[in-house]
């Protein structure tokens, strides 16, 4: 085989590996931020496969939408909720994949987490987690109790589909190189034959924006007098336990925030 075909096979191997490794890493790693990054790597792998299939505008569109838009959304949501980080790692025995994908994380006390999730301390005081054995105050694990069954179900679905695709291989394949100017063809179709779908998608985006903003609004009437009360309390972060390792900075967070208020 000549260089072009070898390059195609190599590129397919690389991108397929990136997609599947990214998806696996997303489900098994112990930190939610890393899950977001692995999901993005998986999307980039699939976009590479799109470009290999000569749908280049679609590949670029996939990268832009999933990274520029959706991942920003996911990252902001990760910042709002509790990221377990590496805290649980020292106390759990994990299967090989999880240990590999969480390998860069260290168990530690992270100072920033307590200052950015104010709800957390109220969470501890109000709720008694009776059905979790060790009351560590934070989430125990990333996985539900259904994990073994879920793994078997996932494996079954995968094997069923792979066998279907392998055992019925007679698709009517056409040996035809598509038009290279894909953006022109897509544009003409979007404005011609699929104008209704295009405008309908635009209308749906508008409704989605409106719905999301309405759902996430502060929950009080604009005229009620306690609307501007903060929904979270600015608490002092608890003192970190004595670390044998010295801290990287001697930070006084209160002073940092007061200083930035003065400079504005």
């Amino acid at each position, binding site marked *: 085989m000549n260089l072009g075909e070898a390059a195609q096979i190599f590129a397919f191997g690389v991108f397929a590996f990136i997609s599947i490794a990214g998806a696996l890493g997303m489900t098994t790693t112990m930190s939610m931020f890393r899950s977001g990054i692995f999901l993005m790597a998986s999307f980039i792998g699939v976009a590479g496969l799109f470009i290999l299939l000569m749908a280049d505008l679609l590949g670029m569109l996939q990268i832009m939408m999933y990274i520029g838009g959706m991942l920003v959304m996911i990252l902001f949501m990760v910042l709002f909720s509790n990221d377990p980080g590496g805290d649980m790692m020292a106390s759990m025995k994990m299967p090989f994949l999880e240990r590999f994908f969480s390998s860069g994380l260290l168990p530690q006390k992270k100072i920033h987490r307590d200052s950015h999730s104010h709800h957390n301390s109220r969470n501890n005081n109000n709720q008694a987690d009776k059905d979790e054995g060790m009351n560590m105050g934070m989430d125990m694990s990333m996985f539900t109790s259904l994990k073994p069954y879920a793994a078997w179900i996932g494996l079954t679905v995968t094997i069923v589909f792979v066998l279907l695709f392998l055992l019925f291989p007679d698709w009517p394949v056409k040996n035809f190189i598509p038009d290279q100017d894909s953006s022109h063809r897509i544009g003409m179709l979007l404005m011609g034959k699929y104008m209704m779908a295009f405008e309908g998608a635009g209308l749906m985006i508008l409704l989605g924006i409106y719905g999301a903003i309405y759902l996430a609004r502060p929950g009080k009437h604009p005229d009620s007098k306690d609307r501007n009360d903060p929904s979270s309390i600015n608490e002092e972060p608890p003192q970190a336990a004595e670390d044998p390792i010295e801290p*990287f900075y001697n930070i006084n967070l209160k002073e940092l925030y007061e200083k930035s208020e003065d400079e504005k």
Partner: protein
Amino acid sequence: MGIILSLAAVILLFSAGTLITILIEPMLSTTDEEGPASNSPKNNIYPVHPDSWLYNAAPAVALASMAAASVVIPIDKSLAGADIGIGLFYFIVIIDYMVLAVALGGWGSNVPESIESCYRIIAQLVAYVVPLGLAVIGPIMMAKSMSTQNIISSQSSLWYIVSQPLGFALYIITGLMQVYRAPFLEPFSNILNNGIISTYGGWRGKLWRISLSGILFIVAAMGAVLFLGGWSGPLLPGFVWMAIKTFAVLILMKWIGQRMKLLSTARMLELSWKILIPAGLLNVLIVGGLILMGVGGK
């Protein structure tokens, strides 16, 4: 043989451009502001509790995004890295990776100011991406193509800065947002103790410096391609004109930026969503009207 020669020429010219940018910067600035990555620690610091995959990956991703984005910029009539049919779209998408790199670096070092800086940089991404798209649509509409060589060759009669001044102004402002220069410097400023750069010392800080200066050069080069007509010009060879126009746009960006006060993240988002996006939509409307009247294009 020709491919290797042109590849070598492209690499040489871009490295030269980046290095000259790093050297010229102190001469061009009228205030003490030196750019985001100038104050990295001198000795080789490693933070105590990093997330080591993300921390080590960040400078590499930044450098990769800068290198990959410089592929579509044409330096001479037949001297571009690759003339992709969707070149401009590819450029916008790849520049987004710089934001990803800074976010990885911010989270990975596990120091409170870095993480705060990471949040503000993602907010800056949200602020610049829609006005940039609206500013860049003007040249695409007039040239009827997304390939950079086609955009340059369709400016042979009239440069786009003359027919789309609003688009050019929008491109300059969002370009400043993309490269983290004044007035959009807050994630890297003294308020946050230099942001994520303070946790990268030694050679990693220098890698950040190369990436962040290089991206200023590349954004200015793309501005020259889109609005000033790229390598076309009467007497001198193509790459000399390209260098002159790139540095002209670069000097204009820095000069305008340093006249203004530093904007905080909230004010920057307000500026983007309340002023720049309506201006962008107005720009698209005006360009459409101009095309219907027959100005520009073939």
